[in-house]
């Protein structure tokens, strides 16, 4: 027995010593910014980036020709690697950019120990890379048919096996007459083109790095950006350290009127970045993210649905306890839309307008917003969200929640169904969802609401790839979807119902309406103004009348941060500009004890 006692004592001591050596990092030391990503990053290759989280990681390392002004709203573009905004020819097809001087890529073995300045040819290389069919960029749509000669270049590359020397194939629309000038010639005016140049796939890379790392390039980010990728543990964290050779980029000097009051212009004109290091932590579950934020391990956070009541009281006001901890919460509308999609090619829901109208009237949006977003969303009356030009706050959805009307429309829908050869009542509607808890809860609520008008719903659960496949193959009948702005232009939302974008494209409803298409094609390249607004109104009217969607909500973001974080302003279209954010170590030291 003595032996067992001895083993027990040794094990106990070992465990205690392990606990004793538990390393609690001195959270008040240094300017290290800790932020969270709620999904892992697949790779750091700009051309294959396809999600918000990859965008956030990429913009620490890489830079594009243009960026959004950090503070101004409505969103406004400004030059980044370009010295000034491009000179646009009168016909709107030629864009001339002049690069800033003395910009260098991060040091990397790919450059053989030499400082490597940014050149105009790097921009041409980066844009040609988007067109390379072997790289399968999900963002090719943004250049397709837009840049003179680029589509032909793409076709030509198809006949060769990688690696391909892009310089061997000239693209007439992409020219670098000298080391600092880039001339881009479009096939026709493309109003959204400057916005495209802020997107992650247009960030500038160096050909030497691509050549050196080959297929592993996406694991070796080397750009001109404010931070250098120091370490990356997949599924866990990315660490970036300040780029000591970063060019003389400065904090913005202009913003919205309230920015001055909120202290967001104190650092105007100062050189960025302010912090020494950034760690982006991957949290796929909300609890560790939230607890790490509350403990001060994360500088920013999001409020999970289940923690809402611990932050806000019954009146929706921030609780005193949260204020006492100097936690700052702001409220900002997201440029997005949440909607249910009818497959217009489905013989039941697609051919029965009354049925779609009945479903529209049967769904209690306010109740859904309360249940699923803790009221952190507003009812959508049209496809364009707040914050995007063309949003009409006075717009009313003619098929908003009205249970009695829904019942009447359901009767009409059944009659129409029977007139077109159907027998009995409308068959059960198949509702496709992904295999997440929230999606299942949402399906239960939808089913509950539609039962009230005598409609039956059958939920079909699938993995994300299965869900995508069903959408792409037009195999769905009814499903839910959300769209966040790629860029702040109404076209980005109205294209979701353009017939040429049908599945597998973003028009998941497979909505086809000639009048809508003509209006879209006219509106797409127009400058903002009364004429464009009038066309948008007509398009929205068609959407209201034809009901290819159930317009649900526009979400409201509640970014949350600690009191020691300075200069933070959420950018919903192009997030992650951490070069402007600062940490106040003295303030952090004061606040940290309050968190315990």
């Amino acid at each position, binding site marked *: *027995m003595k032996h*067992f006692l001895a083993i027990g004592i040794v*094990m106990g001591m070992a*465990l205690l010593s*392990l*606990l004793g*050596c*538990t*390393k*609690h990092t001195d959270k008040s030391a240094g300017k290290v910014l800790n932020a969270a990503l709620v999904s*892992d990053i*697949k*790779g750091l290759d700009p051309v294959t980036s*396809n999600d918000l989280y990859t965008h956030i990681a990429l913009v620490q390392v890489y830079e594009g020709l243009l960026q959004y002004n950090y503070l101004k709203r409505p969103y406004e573009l400004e030059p980044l690697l370009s010295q000034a905004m491009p000179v646009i020819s009168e016909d709107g097809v030629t864009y001339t950019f002049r690069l800033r001087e003395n910009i260098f890529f991060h040091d990397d073995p790919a450059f053989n120990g030499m400082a490597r300045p940014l050149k105009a040819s790097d921009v041409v290389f980066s844009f040609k890379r988007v067109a390379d*069919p*072997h790289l*399968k960029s*999900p*963002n*090719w*749509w*943004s250049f397709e048919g837009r840049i003179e000669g680029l589509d032909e270049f793409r076709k030509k590359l*198809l006949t060769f096996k990688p690696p391909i020397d892009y310089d061997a194939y000239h693209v007439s629309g992409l020219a670098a007459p000298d080391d600092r000038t880039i001339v881009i010639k479009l096939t026709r005016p493309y109003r959204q083109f400057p916005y495209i140049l802020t997107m992650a796939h247009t960030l500038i890379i160096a050909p030497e790095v691509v050549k050196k790392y080959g*297929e*592993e390039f*996406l*694991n070796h980010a080397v750009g001109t950006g404010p931070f250098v990728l120091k370490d990356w*543990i*997949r*599924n*866990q*964290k990315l660490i970036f350290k300040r780029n000591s050779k970063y060019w003389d980029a400065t904090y913005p000097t202009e913003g919205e009127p309230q920015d001055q009051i909120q202290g967001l212009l104190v650092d105007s004109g100062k050189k960025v970045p302010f912090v020494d290091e950034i760690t982006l*932590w*991957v*949290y*796929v*579950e909300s*609890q*560790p993210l939230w*607890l*790490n934020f*509350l*403990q001060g*391990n994360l500088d920013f956070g999001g409020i999970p649905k289940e923690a809402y009541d611990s932050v806000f009281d019954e009146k929706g006001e921030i609780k005193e306890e949260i204020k006492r901890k100097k936690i700052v919460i702001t409220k900002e509308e997201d440029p997005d839309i949440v909607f249910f999609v009818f497959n217009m090619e489905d013989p039941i829901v697609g051919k029965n307008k009354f049925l779609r109208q009945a479903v529209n009237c049967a769904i209690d949006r306010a109740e859904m917003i309360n249940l699923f977003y803790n009221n952190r969303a507003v009812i959508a009356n049209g496809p364009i969200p707040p914050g995007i030009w063309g949003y009409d706050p006075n717009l009313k959805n003619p098929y908003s929640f009205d249970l009695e009307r829904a019942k009447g429309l359901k009767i009409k829908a059944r009659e129409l169904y029977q007139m077109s050869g159907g027998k009995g009542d409308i068959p059960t509607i198949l509702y496709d969802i992904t295999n997440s808890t929230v999606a299942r809860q949402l399906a239960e609520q939808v089913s509950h609401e539609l039962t009230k008008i005598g409609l039956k719903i059958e939920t079909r659960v*699938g*993995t*994300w*790839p*299965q*869900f*995508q*496949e069903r959408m*792409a193959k037009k195999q769905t009948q009814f499903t839910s979807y959300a769209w966040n702005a790629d860029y702040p232009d109404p076209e980005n939302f109205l294209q979701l119902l353009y017939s040429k974008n049908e599945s*597998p*494209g*973003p028009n998941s409803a497979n909505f086809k309406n000639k009048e809508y298409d003509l209006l879209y094609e006219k509106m797409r390249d127009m400058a903002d103004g009364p004429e464009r607004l009038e066309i948008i109104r007509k398009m929205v009217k068609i959407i209201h009348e034809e009901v290819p969607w159930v317009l649900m909500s526009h979400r409201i973001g509640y970014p949350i941060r600690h009191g020691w974080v300075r200069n933070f302003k959420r950018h919903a279209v192009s997030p992650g500009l951490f070069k402007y954010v600062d940490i106040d170590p003295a303030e952090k030291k004061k606040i940290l004890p309050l968190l*315990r």
Partner: protein
Amino acid sequence: MTSYVVRRILYAIPILFGVSLVTFILFHVVGGDPVLTLLGKHASVDEMQELRHQYGFDRPMVLQFVRYLGQIVTFNFERSFQTKQTIGKMLADGATVSLWLAVPPFFISQFMSIVLAMLAAAFRGRMADRFIVIMSVLGMSVSVLAYILFGQFFLAFKLNWFPISGYESDFPDRITYLVLPWIIWIVISIGADVRFYRTIFLEELNQDYVRTAHAKGASPFRVLFVHVFRNALLPIITHVVIEIPFLFMGSLLLEAFFGIPGLGNLAVNAFNNADWPVVKAVTLLGAVLYILGNLISDLLYAKADPRVAL
């Protein structure tokens, strides 16, 4: 012995073939189209066809399966569709982390379970036995998720005894982050194991040789820890060794909640992203480890019990 091992390895071939066939069918029937995940919402039909051609998805199913079998034979699963990393590196990185997460608590929990089960069996029907059984049943009845949420909230957040989540690849820093997941792993697994081992020990305690040993004047301690334990070793070995392959796979929930970059996370990401090369490799790794586990367990039988002839 050698001929037995060779025979078992040969038996493994049809098993692996079956696993490969089922994986292949499942992936193609319910796995979703990886091309859609890779190309995104704006991809044209031509682009999708092009990528399908590049990956060989447009070839007849039989040829695709033959290619897959070729990859198994050569252990070359190429690169991940999503991360473009070599599969071998991904598996090695993930398995190392998963083993760090799983092995220490597994052996601690096995040791504790055996000791507690022996005590419960020795004091059958008495207070100690009842207490151990009740605690085991309670432990088994609570969901894994509840333990994780409680541990993270109470022990890490409220009491600040452990980091809430995280992982470090450096030693001994990594231990700092693993202590809480280890404790949770032990609590989760100990209940079922204690009950299982208790049944085994009780069965042995009713054997004639135990009565004989007592009659010969052997102390209760010697009877329990020498005679009974040795005879109960076969089912214990089976239980322990069969579990070992699964340790490589880590624990999805623990990895997800504690931000531990192990094989569990890797596998789930691969399934969710239709990352076919990773799915194939992980499934095959699981099957191979299971077969190996069985083989080792059989070999250990012979060591533990001279009556077992291979």
